[in-house]
C-alpha cells in the first residue's frame, strides 16, 4: 500500500486513527489499590490511572503489520525475523556489555551480519552474480529475487538499535511488541526516514499527540501527498515520455529537459513521501527528525548531503564514517567507503556505484581543493552546484550503463544525437507551468510561510483555522481528483 492512494486515504487511515483514539492511552496502575491515610486514621482506596501506551501501541503494531502484509504478504516474515534477531541480540549485548565487552560486540556483530546478509541476498545477490558472470571462467545461473519493500529501511533500523545499545546510547527493550513496533511503524516502514532507536525509544512509551501536533501532522501529510501526486507524478510523465526508449537518439535539449524534470521529480517524490511519513507520525504523537531541508538551495555538494535524505547521511556518518576513523584517520579512504555504500544503498547497479563515486570525487575536490571558498560566493555557488546535481541524477536514472553514457554524451555535446526535437520541446513547454511551480517550491518559502501561520494559532486562531482548513481541503480535493483520474502513480524510492 502506498500513502498516496485512495485505499490508504479512505480505508486504512481513518480506521487506524479511529481505533487508535478509541482505545485508552492509560491503564490502571499495577498495584491497583493504594492506601492513603487521611487525617482521621481511616484509609481510602485509590486506584490510579497511569499513562500507558500499550493499547495504542497494539493498535499501531497491528495496523502496521496489516499495512505491510498488504504490500508483502510473504516477506512480512522477513521483517519479523529481522526484528526478532535485533531484539534477541539486545539481551546478549546488555548482558555482556559491561563485563565482557568483546562478547557484547560479538553479539552485535552477529545481528548486524544477519541483517546485512538479508539485505545482501534480496537486494544485491542478483547484481553480484551478474557481475561475476562477466568473468570468463564463471558459470553461475542468473538470480532474480523480488526486493521486499522497505528492506533497506528496516534492516538499518534494527542495526541502529544494536549499535546504539552497544555504545550505551539506548536502553534495552525488553518488550518484543514494542521493538517490533519500532521496526515496523507504518509511517516510515516503506520509505523512511530511517529512524534511530535512541530517538524513538522514549516515544514508544511516552508520547502525546497534542491537538496542535495533530493539526501539524494533517497539513504536513497533505502537503507531502500533494507534492507526490500533483507535482512528482506530473513531472514523471515528462521523464517517462522523454526516455521511454532509453537515451538513444533523444535530442540533446530533450535529454536536459528530461534530466531537469527527473531532478525535480525525485525530490518531490521522496521528500513528499517523507513529509507524509512525518505528518502521519505526528498524528500518532511521534516526532520524527526531518529528512529533507530544501536541498536545492545548496551551495556545495557537501551542503547538499546535509540537506538530502538526512537520515541516511547521518546513519552512514555515525555508523560507518566515524567508527572507521572519520576525519582523523585515513579520511579519504573513509569517505570512499561511505560514498560507495551510499551509492549502492540506492540500488543494486553499477550506475549507482558510479553515482556514489561521482559524489566522492566532488566532495574530495570541495574538501581539499576548494576548501569552502566556493560556498562563500552566493549565486555562483548555486549555479555550479545545480548542474552537477543534475548530472548526478542522469547517472542515477539510467540503470543500464550504456544508456547512462549515451545520456551523458548527449548532455555534453558528444555523440550524434540531434540538438532539437519539436515534439519533445512541445511536451516540455506544455509542462512548463508545473516545472516552474516545482522550481519555486524548492525555495524555503513554504517553511517560512508555514511557520508564520503556525505562529498565528494562539494569537489569531480564527485566521489560523481558516487558512488551515482552506489549505487542507484544497490539497485533499486536488489529490483525490488526480488519484481518481489517473492510474499513473509510480513511487521511485519504492525499490529500497
Amino acid at each position, binding site marked *: 500500500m502506498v500513502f498516496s492512494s485512495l485505499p490508504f486515504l479512505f*480505508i486504512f487511515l481513518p480506521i487506524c486513527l479511529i481505533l487508535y483514539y478509541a482505545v485508552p492511552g492509560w491503564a490502571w496502575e499495577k498495584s491497583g489499590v493504594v492506601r492513603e491515610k487521611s487525617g482521621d486514621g481511616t484509609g481510602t482506596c485509590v486506584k490510579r490511572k497511569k499513562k500507558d501506551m500499550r493499547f495504542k501501541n497494539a493498535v499501531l503494531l497491528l495496523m502496521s503489520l496489516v499495512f505491510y502484509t498488504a504490500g508483502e*504478504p510473504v516477506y512480512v516474515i522477513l521483517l519479523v525475523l529481522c526484528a526478532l534477531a535485533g531484539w534477541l541480540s539486545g539481551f546478549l549485548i546488555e548482558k555482556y556489555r559491561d563485563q565482557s565487552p568483546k562478547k557484547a560486540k560479538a553479539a552485535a556483530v552477529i545481528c548486524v551480519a544477519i541483517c546485512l546478509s538479508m539485505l545482501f541476498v534480496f537486494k544485491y545477490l542478483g547484481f553480484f552474480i551478474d557481475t561475476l558472470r562477466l568473468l570468463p571462467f564463471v558459470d553461475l545461473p542468473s538470480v532474480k529475487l523480488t526486493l521486499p519493500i522497505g528492506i533497506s529501511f528496516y534492516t538499518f533500523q534494527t542495526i541502529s538499535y544494536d549499535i546504539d545499545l552497544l555504545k550505551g546510547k539506548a536502553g534495552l527493550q525488553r518488550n518484543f511488541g514494542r521493538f517490533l513496533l519500532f521496526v515496523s511503524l507504518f509511517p516510515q516502514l516503506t520509505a523512511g526516514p530511517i529512524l534511530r532507536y535512541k530517538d524513538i525509544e522514549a516515544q514508544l512509551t511516552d508520547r502525546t499527540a497534542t491537538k496542535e501536533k*495533530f493539526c501539524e501532522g494533517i497539513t504536513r501529510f497533505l502537503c507531502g501527498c500533494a507534492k507526490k501526486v500533483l507535482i512528482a507524478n506530473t513531472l514523471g510523465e515528462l521523464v517517462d515520455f522523454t526516455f*521511454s526508449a532509453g537515451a538513444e537518439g533523444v535530442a540533446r535539449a530533450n535529454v536536459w529537459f528530461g534530466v531537469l524534470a527527473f531532478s525535480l521529480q525525485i525530490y518531490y517524490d521522496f521528500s513528499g513521501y517523507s513529509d507524509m511519513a512525518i505528518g502521519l507520525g505526528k498524528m500518532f504523537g511521534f516526532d520524527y527528525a526531518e529528512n529533507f531541508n530544501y536541498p536545492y538551495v545548496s551551495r556545495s555538494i557537501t551542503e547538499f548531503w546535509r540537506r538530502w535524505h538526512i537520515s541516511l547521511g547521518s546513519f552512514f556518518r555515525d555508523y560507518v564514517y566515524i567508527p572507521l576513523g572519520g576525519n582523523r584517520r585515513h579520511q579519504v579512504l573513509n569517505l570512499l567507503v561511505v560514498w560507495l555504500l551510499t551509492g549502492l544503498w540506492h540500488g543494486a547497479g553499477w550506475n549507482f556505484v558510479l553515482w556514489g563515486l561521482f559524489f566522492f570525487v566532488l566532495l574530495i575536490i570541495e574538501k581539499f581543493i576548494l576548501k569552502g571558498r566556493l560556498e562563500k560566493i552566493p549565486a555562483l555557488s548555486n549555479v555550479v552546484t545545480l548542474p552537477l546535481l543534475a548530472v548526478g541524477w542522469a547517472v542515477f536514472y539510467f540503470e543500464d550503463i550504456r544508456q547512462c553514457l549515451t545520456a551523458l554524451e548527449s548532455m555534453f555535446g558528444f555523440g550524434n544525437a540531434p540538438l532539437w526535437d519539436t515534439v519533445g520541446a512541445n511536451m516540455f513547454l506544455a509542462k512548463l507551468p508545473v516545472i516552474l*511551480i516545482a522550481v519555486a517550491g524548492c525555495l524555503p518559502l513554504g517553511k517560512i510561510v508555514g511557520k508564520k501561520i503556525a505562529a498565528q494559532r494562539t494569537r489569531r486562531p480564527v485566521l489560523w483555522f481558516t487558512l488551515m482548513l482552506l489549505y487542507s481541503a484544497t490539497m*485533499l480535493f486536488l489529490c483525490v481528483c488526480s*488519484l481518481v483520474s489517473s492510474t499513473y502513480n509510480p513511487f521511485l524510492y519504492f525499490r529500497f
Partner: protein
Amino acid sequence: MKKDERSKRIAELLSTVIISLFISVLAVGGVTSLLVKSGDISEKEQRNLKKYPEFSWSSFFDGSFFKETEEAYNDRFPLRNLFIDTAESIREVVTIKTGPEFIPIANEDDDFFNQEEYGTPVPWEDQTASPSPDSGDRETEAPTPEPTPEDQGTASPSKTEGPDETPSYTPTPLPTPTPTPTPTAPPSSPAPFDISGYEVFTGGRQLSGVVIENGRGMEVFNGTAEAAEGYTLYLQRLALKYSEKRVVSVVTPNACAFYSSSEYRTENHDQKAWLELAAKNMQGVVVPDVYGALASHKDEYIFFKTDHHWTALGAYYAYREICTELGMDPVDIGELETRKIEGFLGSIYNKTNSKTLESSPDTIYCYMPKVRTIARCNQSRSALNLSSLKMIDTVNPNYRGSNLYVCFIAGDNPYTEITTSAGTGKSCFIIKNSYANCLVPWLCHNYDTLYILDPRHVNTTGDNRFSLEGFLGSHEVDDIIVVSHTLFAATTDNIFYAGLMRLS
C-alpha cells in the same frame, strides 16, 4: 492574560474541529466508497470497470489479490466522473499549448466492451429498397462527395443545397475497371520480404499517444517493419492457400496521416510509406490504394475529430477503390438516404478528456443501404454457436448508446452475418477490426452474403478456436477481405494483429 487564555481555548477548539473534519471526511468517503455500488461499465471511458478479485491463497501470497483489490477500488470510487473532469480542467489550466498538443497514452487493449441493447432491428420487409420521400428524421445537409479527378468532364452533381433540399446527384459514371492481370506463373510460396528503401521502419522513436491539433484528435502511428513482414506474409499465405478466391488487403491510414504537423507523420510515423512497403511485398493479393483514395478527398469529412475512426464517407471512397480493383460496380452515394446522429464524442475524447475536443463534437452521417439486409451476430467468443445469432441493424441511425459508432453493424462483435438483396451471386468473408464497421454497409450492395469476423473477440487458439479453414470449407465464399487500419496492421503488440496471425 485572559485574552491569551481565551485565544488558546479557541485555538484548541478549532483544532478539534479540524481534526474531526479530517477524520470524518476520510471516514465518510471510505464508507461511501464501500457502500455505494458503482456499475460495471464506465460509459465515459468506454470500458469495463475493474472487478474485485476472488480471494485465493495463491493470489494472496503472490500479491495479486491486494493489487487487484486496490485497482478495483480505485476504479469504482464514487463521483469518479466529477473528479476526472476536475482533474482535466485543472490540467488544461497548467498546460501551455504550443500548437499541436501531444498526449502520451499507454497502449492498452481495452476490455471488450459489450454493447447494451439498442432496440429492435428493422426487419427485412420494412427496409425500403429506395429512398422514400418522407421518412422521419431526414437529413438535408449530408456532406457531398466531390468528384475524383477521373470523373471530371462528366455531369457533376450540384453542390449548392439549401437547408430544405435533399442532395441531388447525377450519378457519375466511374471509369471502366482495369481487369486484374492474370499472373503468368502462380507463385508457390510467398516472396521474401523486401525492406529496401523503407529501413526507417526498423527503428525510430515510438510516440505512443494522441496529438490534438486544430480541434482534431489523432493517434500517432509508429510503424514497424516487423509487423509489415508478418502481415504481408500472412496475407500472401492466405492467397496461396485459397487460390481460387480473391484475397484483398484493405489497410487504411488514420487522420494523423493527413492533418497533423510533419513531425507526427514522417520517418517511422509515415503511414503512406508503410502502406507502400506493405503493398510492394504482397504478391497475389489485391491491394486497393486506400491512401490515395482518401488523400484526394481529405478536405471532406472523411475522419472524425474526436474518434479514431473514419467516417462512412471516408469508407465510401475506400469502397469505390475496392470496387475498381475487384471489377465491381460501386453504389452511388447520391442515391442513398442519409440520416445523422449529432453530438458524437468518440474514443479520442474519452482517452484524453480534452476540453478542446469536447467543445466541437462530431456528427455521424449514416447512409442507409439501398439494398435490404438481414444482419445477425454472435456475442460470445468461444467457437461460434451459429444457431444463437442475434438480430441487429446494419445501420441504425436511432442508436443512442454511449458509443455512437456502434450504429454501424452494432459495433464490434465476434461474428456477424449479413444477407442482402444485392443479387450479385457473390459472397465475402471479412476479417476486420472496427474500421470495417462503416465499410460493411457499402459492401452490402455488392455481395449477397457477408460473413464478418473480428479476430480480437474470438478464440484463435485452443480447443474452442474458430477455424477459418473449416468455415471456408463449409461456406461459399468468393472474396476474403482483411480490413484494418495502419495502427493495428503495422504494430505487432495489439490483440488484432495477434489474433489475425493465429487465425487459420
